[in-house]
């Protein structure tokens, strides 16, 4: 029998998460994150870790292991309010790789700290000449007495200025090409020779270019076998569980509805206008669909299926709908919609303006819409590669 309702446990968790957020994500913290563009807050992450909400599907003494539906609700609630959890996701992505192929030191010393929210790990994969085509990387490490010396440069090291470590993919065999001769390391970000240079995005988040110049690294920080870096990277990416994207659309709709149901300076309530209702309905219908798609993906995960094209489909649908509706709802509000949050005359607290900018990155990061369409065509329509 089909059943589209969430479990009672999941609904109970939703309430719990919301009261957690009311306590741990006060307006001041939200404001600071907005102003700095940071995607991380150490206290918030520690509080999450104390509830075992960083890796809720990971076994830990004294804590229940959450089911897929509960994990979904937890992530949804956190994402909807833009809680600073990105360093946790990246940390757990790397923790799972270390758990699978890392040394005892990494597995026993580092992984538990990630789970508890005590340390965070940024990602160092992309390079100026290696975006989607990761195999084109040029950063390198050469073996020296007692360890390695790293040189290179990584793009988009989000949290590179706040995290404790960065997960680095580098070329250890200078003669090698493409996927061969690569090795992964966990690089402490406080080592000498490491530098993070701020890069701000259109939506105001801070990411970094990180530079590595003659960085000496003990061998215990090596994650993969020498030359087996590509395999360990694949382990990280294989974790098909993708972040939910519909909460971003939900946030936009919520803000727009808030504006529409509040009387304007002339006393008129915008939602009485037909075009306002039309635009809101279009967004609300797409939001319901996006949520349904994600619910189904969650249900597949709960069954142990791999949603190999469902994740891409959800991401494609939610993020493209996000762009479309951010534009439409901006037009709905009119010129004032473009004043930003830091402007005292901003409409809807400037958050429709922020959604408009934010939405443009969503169709790019974590695989562009073009890449998602290729995956869907190949995986679900049986089209040939290339």
């Amino acid at each position, binding site marked *: 029998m089909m*059943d*589209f309702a969430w479990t009672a446990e999941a609904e109970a968790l939703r309430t719990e998460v919301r009261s957690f957020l009311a306590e741990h994500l006060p307006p001041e913290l939200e404001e600071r994150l907005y102003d700095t563009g940071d995607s991380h807050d150490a206290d918030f992450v520690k509080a999450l870790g104390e509830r075992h909400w960083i890796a809720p599907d990971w076994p830990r003494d004294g804590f229940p292991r959450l089911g897929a539906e509960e994990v979904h609700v937890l992530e949804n609630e956190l994402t909807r309010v833009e809680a600073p959890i990105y360093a946790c996701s990246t940390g757990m992505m790397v923790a799972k790789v270390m758990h699978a192929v890392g040394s005892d030191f990494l597995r026993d010393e580092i992984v538990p700290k990630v789970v508890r929210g005590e340390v965070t790990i940024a990602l160092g994969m992309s390079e100026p000449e290696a975006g989607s085509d990761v195999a084109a990387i040029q950063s390198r490490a050469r073996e020296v007495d007692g360890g390695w010396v790293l040189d290179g440069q990584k793009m988009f090291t989000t949290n590179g200025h706040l995290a404790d470590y960065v997960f680095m993919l580098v070329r250890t065999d200078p003669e090698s090409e493409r996927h061969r001769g690569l090795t992964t390391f966990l690089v402490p970000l406080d080592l000498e020779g490491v530098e993070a240079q701020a890069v701000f995005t259109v939506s105001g988040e801070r990411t970094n270019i990180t530079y590595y110049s003659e960085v000496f690294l003990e061998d215990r920080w090596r994650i993969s076998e020498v030359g087996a870096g590509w395999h360990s990277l694949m382990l990280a990416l294989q974790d098909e569980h993708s972040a939910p994207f519909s909460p971003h659309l939900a946030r936009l709709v919520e803000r727009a509805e808030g504006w529409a149901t509040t009387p304007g300076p002339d006393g008129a309530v915008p939602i009485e206008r037909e075009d306002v209702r039309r635009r809101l*309905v*279009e967004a609300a219908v797409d939001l*319901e669909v996006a949520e349904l798609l994600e619910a189904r993906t969650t249900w597949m995960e709960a069954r142990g299926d791999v949603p190999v094209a469902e994740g891409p489909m959800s991401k494609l649908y939610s993020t493209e709908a996000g762009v479309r509706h951010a534009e439409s709802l901006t037009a709905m509000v009119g010129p004032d919609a473009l004043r930003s949050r830091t402007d005292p005359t901003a409409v809807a607290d400037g958050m429709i303006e922020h959604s408009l900018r934010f939405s443009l990155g969503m169709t790019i990061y974590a695989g562009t819409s073009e890449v998602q369409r290729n995956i869907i065509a190949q995986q679900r329509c049986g089209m040939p590669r290339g």
Partner: protein
Amino acid sequence: MEFRLDEGQIELQRTVARFCADRFPLDALADREGRPVQADDWQALADLGVLGLLVPETDGGSGLGVVDAALVFEQLGDHLVPGPVLWSLLAAPLVGDVVTGGCMVAGVESSALSDGAVVVDHAAEIDVLLVVHPDHVSAHRLADLPAPVPLDAVDPLATVGRINGLGEGDRVGDAATAAQLRLLGTVLASAMLVGVSDRSLRVARDYALERHQFGVPIGSFQAIKHLLADMYVRTQCAQSAMYAAAAVLDDPDSSDPARAAAGAKLLAADAAIENATTAIQVLGGMGFTWDMLPNHLLKRAWATEQDFGTIDDHAAHLGATIDAMAS
């Protein structure tokens, strides 16, 4: 949460798919153009239990739920099954002999009325015309009505006629029944449209793999791939919303049935029209010929979009109830 069909449902789906493929083969569509529903086809549909799906077992039906019926209508759309199956199924609990195939029923919503005349699919072939008014449902024996004037059908696999004046008819249902018929009709029309979307995708996909250009299947070209990916996404979205709406009709307390049905119809009609149109584009010159499947899929999509409220009607309905959507 459960998105999977149970075993009975999967079996039902398979049975109907096999039946349709056997009796309404898509490679012989030309034979069906402009032809009335064949008596043996109609009897076979009745024998299969399609017409009595929602009639309780005690009254000779199958007593199944709306989700089950939706599965069946997805297949009917997928195979372009002809005839007023949906209206007959809706009428089955209200009008005698429908379940057994002895009485064929078509219908109209009273909103379709203008200057007292109605345009009815299969008008000349039916026994009874069902009219869903805002506050009641009436049934009219064709024998008591003026003879239908034949018109051109949007869908060449159907016939259509204009009936000038209805008279009173028999009152066969109250306002609640009328509302329920409208909801059921909306969801099951959506199911047919999902079937049309999915068939359009498969037709385009097969062609993209078979047809070679410059030595490779045209499905290797990114432009074609992306068209197919978008067709897939549209089908999946419409199907998810349609199943969800069907489930809400089975358990009306779980959510708002009118809202769910409107959303499903809107998405399913859009998916069917867009996918059939895209199938024409993918098939190129061949796709634009009358005898090829995409033409018939598009015509069916256009015709079914009109039943139980167009995309615009449902968008307007959702707009009017937007306050309920605020989350």
